[in-house]
């Protein structure tokens, strides 16, 4: 027998042992995987199937691609997609202010412990309350317009929530206000994880504060920024329902309606168009998956380029 092609017995036993261990590792979590597949996977499959029907919660008849055709033919779909894209503008604002505040906390400015609590407070308050506060502040007779009138900027005292663009602006402000604590925490964690030795070495080499900030801290926060952007983009498409519902109800018309809000409206507000809502949900899933894929590809390429 050729000694180059025969697998030694000890190696065969080792390989079998590894397979057994992998299986034993899988066994305890198999039950959990089954539950997750049932709870998360089953609704996705049902939603996909029902998107080809006129399901109203009780009756269901196959209607082919009608729901998808109507969705893309409708004027409102493109408005809703535009709205979601515009709400992505909150991400650079969040990153900028989050970075500034995180650096200030890292530098331990006087009162930093107090500021840390204050910055994180909106994160623990219900979005419903924050939404109502912003709705009241930006109402036509609200505090914002009153202040603008007092300081001589009455021309800017508009009906903030009665117009699509200004309504989206208010929603963006509310999102940034509510999410700032999370962003600061994330970036602060990223800065804190930079080894002290790196910063000391830079200092010894004569790097000043700004040089350390821009040449060391910012580049090393790449992974944190990548994670923040990916999660924020997903959240814009799937998690802004409370903001829209409380502040504008998606109005006026469809001017501040997003795709996930329209799913709720189609399914539960009027007519129980669950089939159409399912089609919108499937389209939303595809959009989120595509965007996430694009982001990860771009981030990987940037990382390789930097490397």
């Amino acid at each position, binding site marked *: 027998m050729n000694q180059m092609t025969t697998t030694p017995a000890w190696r065969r036993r080792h390989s079998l042992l590894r397979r057994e261990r992998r299986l*034993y590792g899988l066994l305890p979590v198999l039950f959990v995987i089954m539950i997750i597949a049932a709870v998360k996977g089953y609704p996705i499959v049902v939603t996909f199937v029902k998107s080809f029907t006129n399901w*109203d919660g*009780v009756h269901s008849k196959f*209607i082919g691609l009608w729901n998808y055709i109507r969705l893309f033919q409708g004027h409102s779909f493109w408005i809703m997609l535009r709205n979601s894209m515009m709400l992505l503008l909150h991400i650079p604002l969040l990153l900028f202010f989050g970075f500034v505040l995180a650096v200030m906390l890292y530098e331990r400015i006087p009162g930093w412990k107090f500021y840390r609590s204050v910055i994180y407070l909106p994160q623990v308050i219900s979005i419903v309350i924050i939404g109502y506060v912003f709705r009241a502040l930006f109402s*036509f007779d609200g505090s914002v317009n009153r202040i603008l009138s007092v300081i001589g900027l009455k021309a800017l005292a508009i*009906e903030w929530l009665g117009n699509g663009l200004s309504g989206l602006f208010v929603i963006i402000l509310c999102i940034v206000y509510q999410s700032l604590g999370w962003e600061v925490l994330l970036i602060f964690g990223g800065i804190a994880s930079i080894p002290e030795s790196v910063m000391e070495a830079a200092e010894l080499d004569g790097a000043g504060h700004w040089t350390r900030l821009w040449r060391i801290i910012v580049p090393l926060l790449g992974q944190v920024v990548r994670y923040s952007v990916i999660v924020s983009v997903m959240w814009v498409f799937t998690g802004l329902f409370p903001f829209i519902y409380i502040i*504008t109800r998606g109005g006026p*018309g469809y001017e501040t309606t997003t795709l996930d809000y329209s799913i709720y409206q189609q399914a*539960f507000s*009027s007519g129980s168009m669950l089939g159409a809502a399912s089609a919108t949900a499937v389209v939303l899933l595809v959009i989120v998956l595509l965007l996430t894929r694009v982001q990860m590809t771009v981030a990987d390429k940037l990382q390789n380029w930097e490397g």
Partner: protein
Amino acid sequence: MVVYFNMIIDYHINAIKEAYMNRSRVLVFCLALLALAFSSVMLFARGNAEPKGAVTVKIRITNNVQLFPEELAKPQGDWYITKALARYTQAHPDVTFDVTFVKGSDTATTFKAAAVANNAPDINTLWMGNYLFGVKDLVRPLDKDLTNADYDSVTGWDFVRDGFDPKGTVLAYPTGSANYSMFFYNKDIIAKAGLDFEKAPPRTTQEFDAALAKIKAAGFIPIAADESQSADFIYHIVNLWWGQSVGIPEIAKYNTGGKKFVDDKALLTALTYYQSLYKNGFVNTDVASSSDHKSKFYQGKVGIIIDGTWSLADLETNMKDKLGAIKVPNISSSPVVKDPLMGGPGDCIVISKNSARPDIALDVIRWLNSKSEVLQWLKVQSAFPIRTDISPEDLGVADDPVQSKMLGWTRGPIVWWPDNVLNSNPMGELAKLSPVLLTGKMTPMEVAAQMDAKLEDALR
């Protein structure tokens, strides 16, 4: 497969051996087992707490029928419905109730979801018309259970028959009150504007425009509305103009297909006039996003608001003798229904198909609709009940100028709720687009086209 199961068994045997070696883990495991056993016993015991022969009726109530906004601030034990059901239990000791509450706008959806899961309450309050027809396969038909006494005691049976067909299946029992919407006004502001709505209420759109111009010239907001949250103007005023122009049977024809909103001149006329009110400055500037129009009315800044008999108690408490009411002016000189009030019975109670004791459920419904109970209910809510044997003296409105006037109106021509007649999809689209229509960002024709698209989707 045998090898697989052997692996699982071996794994668990090894796990038990390992646990046995570790005493603290064994102790925790035993305590967990004990807790599980104890809670199972408690659940089992609770499940068997009901004595034999006892019945628990699951009942879902909604706001403005069995539960009123003013009551929400009180403890549940003080609610009318809690006391009402306690009285029933007193008379029928074997019957207890499991009560849940849901908003009127959500009741059809939640009932549908529960019924599909075979978990619907025995008794559920719904809105009449298309909201009821959407769940007709999930409710028990009542034709065989009802008697002449039922039909004679309350009004509204036309609106609970399937498809509004006079011979259609009776799907629900009318309940609650007949509500009507209208304009309420501030008498002081109207007087300052040089008008007298009691003697000369505006009955045409030209007279209405002239009156609104005078209120505006006097320095007040002529009409305040909120089209962002509740689309009051659409549901209560535009719908009346549309309904009076064509009649409700014509609106019902949309549900079977073949008609288009873009061809409906009466609807387009109503929407055009509606739009002109904002253009002429007769409506509050922030109508597309306002949520405080009522507060402004109470503060004496607004001449007229849109509301209904369901808010009478609140309006009278806040406005006192400054409150007046007028019917909505006619949109044209020769409508199908002239000088109508919009409204009528709007609520009903259904018995779900999966109810274990429909006989008891029907008895409870009859009891809640009995004269004695309705009179108790009227102590909490100021309303016009649908019972046919309750007099103005019973209602206590003989000395109330606003309510006694309204009661007279209810005996006259009525346009029943078009939003309950028309399929909810196009109606919902109209309500959603109302702020952009009112402020001139869309034309009536564009809105009608969107409604046609939504109706086509619904009838697919």
